[in-house]
């Protein structure tokens, strides 16, 4: 297959970027999108041109390193990450625009590579259960209904890629943040810190410069892990309750 690629090139965060046109010929239809980029990079290297930088690692759709916007869609068309997108999904001769994720809170590092450390800082602001490793109670001491744990797992499946924020017109990270709050808050082990967690993480999310949610649900549409947007509503409820409780406790 042949493609007309428009690839975003940017030497570093501070410099200006632009699209480079690349004529990608004889690409096997069974190649994944990233393997197509490998082929393009190999050819660039052979002709003495510096290859395109892009983040990738497991290539199984689970590590969340992929951060490509393909034809305007974070992680590209179809469900799943860019590494799980295969060239047979495109038509021969297609023009394909390849850009990094476009979110203010994810500055470009180089070419298609962005800095998503804001997500790590949001998790560090409460996305955990404080417990010491050692002698936890037996794992079966607290039964958890299957339906609850299955729903928690729907949220826990988040791969932290950031496509949600990249797809949102407001650059909101609410799907990502609500997934962690939902996952931990649904489980009995996560309840003691639930109020602290939601307040801490939401405050950090705002401080990192992510926007607010205005119910476009573009996030859930592109989420490679299929995290339901319902978790955002749950987080808003949790946040409101936690704020009220906090205010009451402050006056008590």
């Amino acid at each position, binding site marked *: 297959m042949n493609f007309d690629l428009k690839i975003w090139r940017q030497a570093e965060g501070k410099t200006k970027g632009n699209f480079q046109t690349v004529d990608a010929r004889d690409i*096997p239809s*069974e*190649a*994944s999108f990233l*393997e197509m980029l*490998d082929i393009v990079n*190999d050819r660039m*290297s052979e002709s*003495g*041109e*510096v*290859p395109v*930088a892009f*983040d*990738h*690692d*497991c*290539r*199984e*759709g*689970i*590590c*969340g*390193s992929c951060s490509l916007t393909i034809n305007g869609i974070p992680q590209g068309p179809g469900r799943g990450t860019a590494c*799980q997108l*295969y060239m*047979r999904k495109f038509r021969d001769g297609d023009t394909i625009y390849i850009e990094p994720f476009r979110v203010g809170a994810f500055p470009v*590092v*180089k070419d298609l590579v962005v800095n*998503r*450390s804001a997500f*790590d800082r949001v*998790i*560090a602001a409460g*996305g*955990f*259960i*404080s417990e010491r*490793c050692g*002698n*936890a*109670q*037996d*794992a*079966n001491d*607290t*039964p*958890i*209904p*299957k339906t609850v*744990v299955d729903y928690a*797992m729907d949220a*826990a*499946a988040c791969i*932290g890629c950031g496509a949600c924020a990249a797809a949102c017109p407001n650059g909101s990270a609410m799907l990502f943040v609500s997934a962690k709050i939902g*996952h*931990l808050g649904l*489980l009995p*082990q*996560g309840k003691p810190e639930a109020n602290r967690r939601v307040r801490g993480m939401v405050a950090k999310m705002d401080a990192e410069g992510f926007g607010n949610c205005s119910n476009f649900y573009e996030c859930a549409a592109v989420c490679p892990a299929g995290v339901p947007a319902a978790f955002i509503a749950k987080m808003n409820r949790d946040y409101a309750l936690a704020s009220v409780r906090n205010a009451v406790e402050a006056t008590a």
Partner: protein
Amino acid sequence: MSTTTLDPKIPSGPLADKWANFKAASKLVSPGNKRRYELIIVGTGLAGGSAAAVFGEQGYNVKCFCYQDSPRRAHSIAAQGGINAAKNYQNDGDSVDRLFMDTIKGGDFRSRESNVYRLAQVSTHIIDQCVAQGVPFAREYGGMLANRSFGGAQVSRTFYARGQTGQQLLLGVYSELSHQISAGTVKMHPRHEMLDLVLVDGQAKGIITRNMVTGEIEAHAADAVILASGGYGNAFFLSTNAMGCNVTATYRAYRRGALFANPCFTQIHPTCIPVSGEYQSKLTLMSESLRNDGRIWVPKRREDCGKKVVEIAEDDRDYFLERKYPSYGNLAPRDISSRSAKEVCDEGRGVGPGGLGVYMDFADAIKRLGEPTIRERYGNLFEMYKNITGENAYETPMRIYPAVHYTMGGLWVDYELQSNVPGLFVIGEANFSDHGANRLGASALMQGLADGYFVLPYTIGNYLAPVRGTCPRVDRPEFKRAMDEVKERVKRLLSIKGTRTVDSFHREIGKLLWDECGMARSKEGLEMAIKKFDQIREEFWSNVCVLGEGDELNASLEKAGRVADFIEFGQLMCEDALDRNESCGGHFRVEYQTPEGEALRNDEDYFYVSAWQYTGEGNKPDLIKEPLEYDGVELATRSYK
């Protein structure tokens, strides 16, 4: 031959009491003194991440490094099937002893008995710990934890979270780690790659890293260095490992004097999606858990291979694992299943492009349990398979073929998980001790978390307690020298400006290893490969082309350094395979097999751990043997028939 002898420091007493005896006698660092120590941890997978979290929790100052942009992306995340633990929640006869026996036998009697017993003992705590930190393991309707079976075991002891167990365990570790980062006890350095180990007075006291964004070469000092940098499966180019997985951290430690143990023990996983073309960058695993319900077969006759599945009558199908190993059937261990698949393909009975594939068929399971049950158990795996191959496995069998997946070999460690270099500890896949010549499914996650959460935090005390206050300053000449060497190497890689890409070298050694040091190995082949590696190394250093600069994000440069190490390391793998004149586990020497084609072990001459010592570039390494001693187990021929 070197005269160095190895002391594995196995505690005294009966097997079942060793760990308790060790803990009772080990040295402690008092709570007030822990903050006076600096620890370096390289890698944030299950082993490194959990160790960093625990050490942070205990009050040590931890510096943690990973090459990914976030610790949450370490390759442990890709493990699908599950984690073993001797909980016996199923009341099916499991116990610590049973898990221990299965692991020793699965490893074909080449692991260290005391380490494996300890692993089985702490396995039960791991599940408790993970549930406490919010890992959403699968449960039954009554709210109790669910289990499934895995290869090489006749009990159900595997805990799982859909087909994403590794992800959930790693995210649990990552959340604990994040907690410690916010508490200020762990300082995280993502996008940093360790390029050298620094020794001060013969002890590991620091590392040299490259900041992968700015290219800056940095020195970091500590009281002890912990490597949790994973395995070296990517030496084969095509493997199920993430693209960035590499041997550099452990290989650089080896060059500084740490011994590399059993490098030829690599695991070829039986159920991966077959290779489809030259451009392919990696292979995708289909979880072993699928073998609970999938039946593996090929046509009995060669001429049927090209036919459609429906055209091949039941009687014309050869369910070769069920036929050869009736008591374990499709759940025979990985090495045996892989070799059997290779055999039938070598006979010309393979299916799919190039005849390199066997069927994994769910038709019977769907008939018996219904499609919804199968969908619930393996839905995401079927989806993944469809996405990659374009085929619907609910209707037609999956095609699978073995692929490199895990490496049992690693840096040599004693019972305390300390290498022969004092102050250098090695945990998780990066060390060698627990899986012998073959790892059982769902045991890698178990070992990673056991080492990080429950073993190293106890065993490091004996080293740390007496060395308080010895963390060197990075302006010492040892650091300066190591930094200069690293800078020189980077400069050299960039200055060759040859004609071949880094990947072309990687592909070349990958194919060489797969052909000569893969599922079947021979004396002639290995000798040829060892010579070939010399040529490849020479050509690499005179003809590789690395574009771009050193002081920027430069993926070709990162890869070049890793491939340079893989080239040297691949040769070491072949040396090890050549030395071991027997077949055991994943190491199958064609000269040593039974008339039925099973592995023929030689306990008389090879009941030892091969620990290799670096003797200079291009020189043959020295072999140091750690004789194995078993008290609790009778050596037996491994049989799954």
